[in-house]
């Protein structure tokens, strides 16, 4: 995986972008809540505006995520679907998987424990 994008660290959230084959991979570290979610939303919106359509969001570095964080993922999925794109959530953390299960969103998102090797 090669890092090509910017690394943004502010407000307890660290965001970085890399590529893995045709996938653009955004790694998120920190807490995603009502305070930090706008930063994540802005970052992803900018990537999509640049033409990214095959996106993976790696949340294995996320310590806490609330409904606003899930809302950002839902919004991103909607926008990608509109342009025929795809979204993979890379997640192996039990705490994060639990909130996807509790909301039924595990049926909606393509959640994988690690990045697909075929890119």
């Amino acid at each position, binding site marked *: 995986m090669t890092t090509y994008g910017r690394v943004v660290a502010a407000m307890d959230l660290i965001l970085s972008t890399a590529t893995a084959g045709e996938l653009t991979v955004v790694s998120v570290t920190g807490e995603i*809540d*009502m305070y930090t979610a706008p930063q994540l939303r802005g970052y992803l919106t900018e990537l999509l505006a640049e033409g990214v359509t095959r996106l993976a969001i790696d949340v294995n570095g996320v310590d806490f995520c*609330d*409904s606003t964080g899930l*809302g950002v993922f839902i*919004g991103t*999925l909607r926008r990608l*679907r509109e342009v025929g794109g795809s979204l993979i959530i890379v997640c192996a953390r039990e705490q994060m998987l639990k*909130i996807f299960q509790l909301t*039924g969103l595990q049926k909606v998102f393509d959640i994988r424990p690690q990045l697909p090797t075929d890119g």
Partner: protein
Amino acid sequence: MPVVRFGFTPAPVHVRTARLVAASVAQRAPLPNELLSEVRQAAGEACSRAVARHRRFGVRELVRMELTIGASFVAEVADFAPVTRNTLRTSAVEAEELTGKTTDEDTLTEEVALALLGGLVTDLQVIEGRDGVGSVVRMAWPL
């Protein structure tokens, strides 16, 4: 019965403090360690919901959280935004519907928060506030 009350300006930055207060009081109750992260998440969801509702309706009053230690640990989060029949429910729309609908950010937060609360808290109520103003999310965990 020991009671802790906490009020905050409806701003996202204070939700983090609110959930830490809830988890800290729950620890003193004492709730078992394995439930503390649920309390932290649930209190945060209830507070995020309240902040989103205040923001949507332009309500500047403080969001109120009251934590009571009795036969159960009870967390109540009160907002003062207008209430419709749709507000007072404990079940959210289906996940598939959330991803299909075009809803504004605060409405989406409210729906997902409700879905999470419903999954996290067995004893959950969303009731009308005192004097018919706003709504209260009431969550209880037996001690």
